[in-house]
């Protein structure tokens, strides 16, 4: 059934179709409608779930950790400062190997106080052991929640679904709501082998000496390697049932492109419009949309960028005193494998719009240069 809905409600429908059993969340702009609709769905008894009202995001994640430990499919959603407040428990959820799924609506970090979009909030949580899937459309948001549970429960690692504030969260698009029976078949109930059980009590997360700590970390890393295999597998399996395909990266006209614009989130849609316009003028430009941040798709990135003469990474985030965060990631994948020069542009922080003109400006700045003469470039700033 097709319905016009905002990105936040696409998340709620994704969680409902996944038959989540426990939802614990604290409201924050621009995430609020996600759990607002879920609370109504639970109150109307259209979803058999416990909705736990908590006093902070730290508690929301703690409740999800408890629920997931007991074998329930747990869900939450947040943004920016809320995600930062969860930080300690993000490590706990991953270290305890709990397949929790959370939606994070990208909102820039304060101060200065802001509600608009950039990716510094989720990218700051890069090393917590959470998978991160960045979405471009409301349809992808809904579908990604379902796929996330499938992958998470296979490898026992949590997943963060990431989408831009307002340009997805509050923007209405046509979304196909999959048939519940098909989703049930694709995503069977969560059967957790290690769940809390009063008949077979265990201590979880107890003190671990240097004798074994490292082995648990290796197991987490290997689970992430396996997650990459599962994401590729589910890209095929999901398409077979629902007809839509989501891989680790999403290329657009890169095969013969001399210049590839690397983007993530909704900036990719704009980049693709710019690519079309530039192609019409005979410029061989393409776009590579990064969908999965962790586990990082090294092989796919190298494969997609192997023909490029110039790579331009446009980051909607910044690691102060370094590069944009996507630029670090993509450059590290290319190092030792490719001689292609890489430019890094920072655009659209704090919700500043990224227009097609932004990309024309970037392409013009790179011009005929053979290699970058700065570590990073800012676009459209008031100097």
């Amino acid at each position: 059934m097709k319905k016009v809905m905002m990105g936040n409600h696409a998340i709620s429908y994704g969680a409902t179709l996944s038959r989540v059993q426990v939802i614990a969340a604290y409201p924050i702009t621009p995430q609020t409608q996600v759990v607002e609709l879920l609370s109504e769905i639970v109150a109307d008894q259209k979803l058999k779930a416990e909705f736990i009202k908590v006093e902070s995001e730290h508690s929301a994640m703690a409740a999800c950790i408890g629920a997931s430990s007991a074998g329930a499919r747990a869900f939450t959603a947040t943004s920016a400062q809320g995600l930062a407040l969860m930080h300690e428990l993000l490590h706990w959820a991953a270290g305890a190997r709990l397949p929790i799924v959370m939606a994070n609506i990208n909102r820039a970090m304060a101060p200065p106080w802001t509600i608009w979009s950039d990716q510094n909030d989720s990218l700051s949580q890069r090393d917590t052991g959470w998978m991160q899937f960045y979405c471009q459309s409301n349809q992808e948001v809904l579908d990604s929640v379902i796929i996330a549970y499938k992958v998470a429960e296979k490898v026992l690692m949590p997943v963060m679904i990431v989408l831009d504030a307002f340009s997805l969260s509050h923007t209405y698009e046509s979304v196909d709501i999959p048939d519940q029976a098909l989703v049930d078949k694709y995503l069977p109930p969560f059967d957790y082998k290690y769940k809390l059980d009063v008949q077979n009590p265990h201590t979880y997360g107890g003190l671990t000496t240097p004798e074994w700590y490292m082995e648990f970390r290796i197991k987490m890393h290997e689970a992430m390697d396996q997650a990459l295999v599962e994401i590729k597998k589910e890209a095929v399996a999901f398409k077979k049932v629902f007809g839509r395909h989501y891989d680790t990266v999403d290329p657009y006209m890169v095969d013969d492109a001399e210049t590839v614009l690397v983007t993530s989130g909704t900036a990719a849609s704009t980049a693709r419009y710019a690519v079309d316009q530039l192609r019409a003028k005979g410029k061989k430009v393409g776009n590579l949309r990064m969908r999965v941040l962790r586990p990082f798709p090294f092989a796919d990135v190298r494969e997609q960028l192997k023909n490029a003469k110039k790579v331009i990474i446009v980051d909607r985030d910044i690691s102060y005193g370094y590069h944009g965060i996507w630029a670090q990631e993509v450059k590290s994948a290319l190092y030792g494998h490719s001689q292609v020069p890489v430019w890094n542009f920072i655009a659209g922080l704090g919700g500043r719009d990224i227009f097609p003109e932004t990309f024309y400006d970037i392409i013009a700045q790179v011009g005929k240069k053979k290699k970058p003469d700065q570590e990073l470039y800012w676009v459209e700033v008031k100097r």
Partner: protein
Amino acid sequence: MAKDRKKIDFKKMEELPPMVMSLRSMAANPTGSWRNLKPVIDLSQCIQCTICWKFCPDAAIDWIDDNPVINLDFCKGCGICAEECPKKCIEMIKEGK
């Protein structure tokens, strides 16, 4: 007592569960040597209310023949039992005296 309890042992990474889950039984980890103060119960005053047994955070109080008995293999000497006892018949005595 403590020596009879089995230690959970792993040889290789493959034997470990994916997450830290009862890597060792606390029963095989006697903590009595942490103690500076030892609880001593005056059973002539005790009313068998079980409050000390319920409050002990280490489950180091056994209930034997209707009376509380401190398990000194595990008691860390925190004194919660003495604090909570409504008859104030548990005294914390310095170890070694």
